[in-house]
Structures are given as C-alpha cells and as structure tokens.
C-alpha cells in the first residue's frame, strides 16, 4: 500500500510538471468568425455539423435545408443549389432555390437493388445536376439527371470494388467535358490510388491526368474552364495544387499534367473551390485541430500563382472537411 501511494504521488508530481504543448481546439458547436472579418465576395457555401451555411460579405446565414446535409453545389447563376441529404444508411440529392425553398428530391433513397448513396452533386452550364451514386456494393458511379424530364443516365461505370468515382465537375463553357476523381488500387505492393480523370461526355473517352500510384483528388474547375485546382495527398500533408487544362485530351500525357501543377497552399487542405471571377480559391485547412475556411487570392496572368496570403474566413469552427464547398456570384 505504501509503495502504491508513493507511486501515485510520484506520478502526480510528474503530471503536475507537464503542460500542454499546444492548444487543442474544441468544437464550439457554431461557426466562429474572426474579430477582423474577411468579406466574402458572392455567396460561399459550406457545412458544419451537417448543417448548411452561406457566407456573403460579412454575413453568415444558416440555411434551413433539412437535417444532415453535405456537398453543396450551386449553378453558375446562383439560382439553384443542390445538396446530398443524409439519412441513416443512404442519401438523396435535393435541389432548391438558394434559400432552401422549393425543394425537389432528385434521387430515391432506395431502389429494387437496395439502398442508395447519392453524393457530391454538380451542375453543368445548363443547370442540370449530376452526382456519384452507389447502386452496387462498394462502387460509386457518376450519374446525370435531367431536371425537366426526370430521366437519369449513367455517365461513368466504375471499376468494381475499387472505390469508384467521385467529385464530378463539369467544365464550364464546353458542357461536354467532365473532370472527376477515380479511386483505384495501384503500385507494388498495392496501395490506395486516386487519379484525376478527364472525360468527354460526347464520346465517352476518359484520360487520366495524374499518375498511378499517387493520390490526386477533389478537382475543382475555374469558372472559365482553364484551370483545375485539386488536392495532392502525400506523407507530409494534403496540399492544394493548380494546373492548366488543355482544350481536349486524346491520350495520357507523359509527364502527367498534374506533375507540373503548381503548389499554391501546403498543409492539411481540402475541398478547393474557385471564386466565380477566378480571382481566388476557397478551401478548408486544418489549424489546431479545426478545419476552417480560407480564401487564397490567385493570379492567372502568366504563370499561375498565389497572389497573397490565405485569409481565414472562420476561426476554430470545425467545418465539415468531407463536404464540398460551393461558390456563386
């Protein structure tokens, strides 16, 4: 007993001598704006705790969009917004006006084949949405919807049991090109791979823009269609890179276009999205245990590069880093 108490006291002394090596943020349960607010041009959408928020100027609005949503997408005109609405073991795509009114459910939560995951919607230039869906076990494939007719069609057939395809982005201005992430396994020994994939919706041809092995994902196209921002995963972090897109692709290029991409932000970064005028990229960055919203000014005159330091729109807000951002005028 004496020895135990002695050990207890010693342990207490050791503990008392220690202090934390750095602050750990705790989720405050709300979005926190810094004292010196960064005004957001246009309307920037993000989710926290599966609730949808809109940043505009210095205003912050929580949109009543039903419980548990993620992956907002918005039309180029900003007149429609789509989200994935999560249920217990499935999800559906819901489209509405920018205030969350006049909602239309696009996808069922289940079909004869079983329950359905539908995620990460994206609009084309005509305001028609597409999204990755899961109809078979362990596959996500990209599907398109016609809002007028309600018809759906499969755009991408995933490789079975490899993770499937996600994060679709229509190329603005041409409407027949899609860029998305293909999840695979590659290398020796096998390891998870994520490849940026370009697709011609006219011919169905696909071309990889990034190598195997490697993890390049979450592509986001600039509003003029000239550049794609994406996340490059690595051992030290997940960095934000930008590369130009060719007019079209007929075959895989060596070196891959992603090899010469420019690093514009390092750290643990996720979910890039371009400002409507192409002058900035918003993204989520991990700071002291919290994913917060940042805006990085970008210059595209000559070689693309960051035109200044990233500015924090939120502070210690624990935004959902697995949910896409959307930005409209």
């Amino acid at each position: 007993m004496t020895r135990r108490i002695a050990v207890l006291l010693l342990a207490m002394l050791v503990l008392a001598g220690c202090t934390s090596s750095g602050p750990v943020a705790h989720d405050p349960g709300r979005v926190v704006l810094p004292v010196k607010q960064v005004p957001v041009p246009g309307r920037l959408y993000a989710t926290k705790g599966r609730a949808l928020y809109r940043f505009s100027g210095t205003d912050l609005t929580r949109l009543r969009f039903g419980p548990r949503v993620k992956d907002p997408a918005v039309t180029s005109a900003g007149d429609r917004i789509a989200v994935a609405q999560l249920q217990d073991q499935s999800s559906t795509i819901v489209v509405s006006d920018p205030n969350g009114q006049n909602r239309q459910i696009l996808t069922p939560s289940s079909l004869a084949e079983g329950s359905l995951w539908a995620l990460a919607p994206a609009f084309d230039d005509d305001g028609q949405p597409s999204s990755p869906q899961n109809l078979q076990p362990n596959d996500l494939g990209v599907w398109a919807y016609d809002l007028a007719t309600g018809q759906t069609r499969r755009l991408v057939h995933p490789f079975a049991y490899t993770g499937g395809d996600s994060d679709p982005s229509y190329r603005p201005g041409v409407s027949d090109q899609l860029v998305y992430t293909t999840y695979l396994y590659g290398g020796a020994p096998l390891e998870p791979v994520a490849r940026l994939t370009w697709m011609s919706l006219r011919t169905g041809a696909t071309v990889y823009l990034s190598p195997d092995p490697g993890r390049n994902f979450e592509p986001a196209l600039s509003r003029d269609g000239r550049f794609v921002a994406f996340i490059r995963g690595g051992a030290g972090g997940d960095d934000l890179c930008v590369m130009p897109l060719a007019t079209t692709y007929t075959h895989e290029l060596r070196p891959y276009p992603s090899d010469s991409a420019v690093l514009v932000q390092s750290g643990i970064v996720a979910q890039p999205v371009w400002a409507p005028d192409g002058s900035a990229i918003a993204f989520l960055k991990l700071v002291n245990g919290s994913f917060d919203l940042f805006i990085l000014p970008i210059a595209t005159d000559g070689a693309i590069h960051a035109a200044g330091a990233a500015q924090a729109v939120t502070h210690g807000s624990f935004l959902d880093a697995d949910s896409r951002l959307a930005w409209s005028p």
Partner: protein
Amino acid sequence: MNHSPATGVPDAPGSRRVRWIALGAIALALALIGGVLIYLSPLLALLEPHEASVGRVAGAPGAPPPPLDSKQRINILLLGSDNDQKFQQDALLSQTMIVVSIDPSTHQVTMLSLPRDLWVEIPGHPSAKIDLAYAQGGAPLARATVEKAFKIPIHYYAWVGLNGLVRVVDRVGGVDLDVLHPVLDDNYPNDFSESGYGTERVYLAAGPQHLDGRHALQYVRSRHGDLLSDFGRSVRQQQLLLAIQQRVAGMDLVAALPTFARDLNGHVKTDLDLLRLTQLALFMRDLHPGDVHQAYISAYVRDATSSDGQQILVADWPAIHAYLRQLFGGDLLP
C-alpha cells in the same frame, strides 16, 4: 485556559500558535493526499492487476522490464477486439495486433502491425491464426505467441475493446486524418445494436476530415470495401493511432487523465502500472510526426489455405526476421 497535558503548565501563546500551525499543516497535507487519491482513483481502478504478470519477458524470467526513462527499447503489444455482448468476454479474438516499439535513446517509435490471419505456432496449442492466441490464453498467450514467432520481447500489453476506442477518440475531441480511400461497406457489423448482430451500410468520403469515435471505428474496422483487406485495415489502424497521438500532444494531461481513466474502465486491460502509463503519456505527447515509423510485414507473407480450409497467411520467417533485425537491431530475442 489551555494546559499542556504532560505538565499541567499553561501553554504559552507562542506554543499554541505553533500547535495550530502544525494542525493546519497536517489538515492541509491530508486534504492534498485526499485530493490526489480522488484525482487518481479512476486510474487506480483502471490499472487493477490483470491477467498478464507485470513486465514478464520471455527469455529473461524474473527480469524486470526496463523503465521508459532508460535508454533501453520498450515493446508494448496493443490488442484490439470485438467486445460487445455477442462474444464471451474471455474468448475474444484479437482483431488488431500492433507492436509499439519505443526507443528512448533515439526518441523514435515504430508501429509494427501483425496480420490477424497469420498462421503461427501458438505455445501449448496447435498452430492457428495468430488472432486465436488471445482467445485461447488471453494476453499471456498472445504475448508468448508474438515473442516465439517474431522474437520480439514484449514488455507490456494493452488491450482495448471497441467501446474503449470510441471513447478514447471522443474524449480527445475526435481525430483528424486523411481517409485514404472511400469506405463503402454494405456489411459493416452493427456492434452497437441491441443484439450486437446485424450489419449496416457505411460510407466515408476520401480525403482529410475530422472523425468522431464512431466514425473513426468504422474507418479502422471496415474491410469489405477494401481490396487490400486486412493490410489496408492495418494501415488505417496505424493512421488512427498517429491521429490520437497528435491530439494528445496538445492536451492538458493533468486535467484529462482521470477522465480518460473513468471512460476506459472496463474497456481496457493493461499491465502498465501508473507510473509507466504516465511516463508513456508524456513520451507520446512530446513525439513529432517524424519520430513515428509505420512498419508492416505484408511483403513477407502470402495467401494460403490451411488443412482445415481456412484462408490464412503464411510467413517467410527468415525474411521477416531479417526485416525485424533492420527495425530493432540487436533488441530481438535469441
């Protein structure tokens, strides 16, 4: 008027003051000790003696394990199991086996995952998958099996159940990690249902994100959607350990440790005593990401079928031992 009980002579005012000061000091000391005991009582409950004898090392009977503040390598066997009501508590398979090797002289840590389907000799039992050792003989047999097969001296062990892992992650405020691949599992075991049986559909997007305990468990436990199967799961398990370590690195351990202990009581078994657990927490807190190395033996095993029809992994033991010599130098058993 107060009198000295011994002499009957009235106390001088100065003497009374000394006595009151002494009484006050004793009361303060008792209150401090009481406070310490109250503070540490959850830790005491957590660290009640368990099945494996403290610090027993194969090949060195009776030799105490080196302290964490020495220059000698310390190896801790981490075990993880299903522990919901559908399993007998004394017959759990170890679904996770990771040797955490701490080298205090270089301030480096190596995490070595042992695949659960690896076919090994289990001392005193027929050869079987390595995950059966814990079910058949608890931590002592799991320890002996690892020591015999891998020649790694195991100084301590720590077993964590599913609920324990969820609570740890929630207690540190969740973890931040890069989900390497989408997790799409239509047959994920629903451990937290009333019966403990059944399955549920799970989806986790790829990429950096913050995970709470439940989703962190889904990430490290799912294997139906991962082509890499158990090896992929080993990578994810080590990712989670690193993420927990990084959260702990920013925590106030004085405030957090008793709450941790209360949360984990019943969900953790270990033969680490309080002092060593404290030393370990402090050591972990001061680690930098580059100090932790992840190791796997996937290159040295191959798929096979056992004589009773089980899908197993068989090892190239000479290659594994050569690999371990690279990792651990001369700190292996003969």
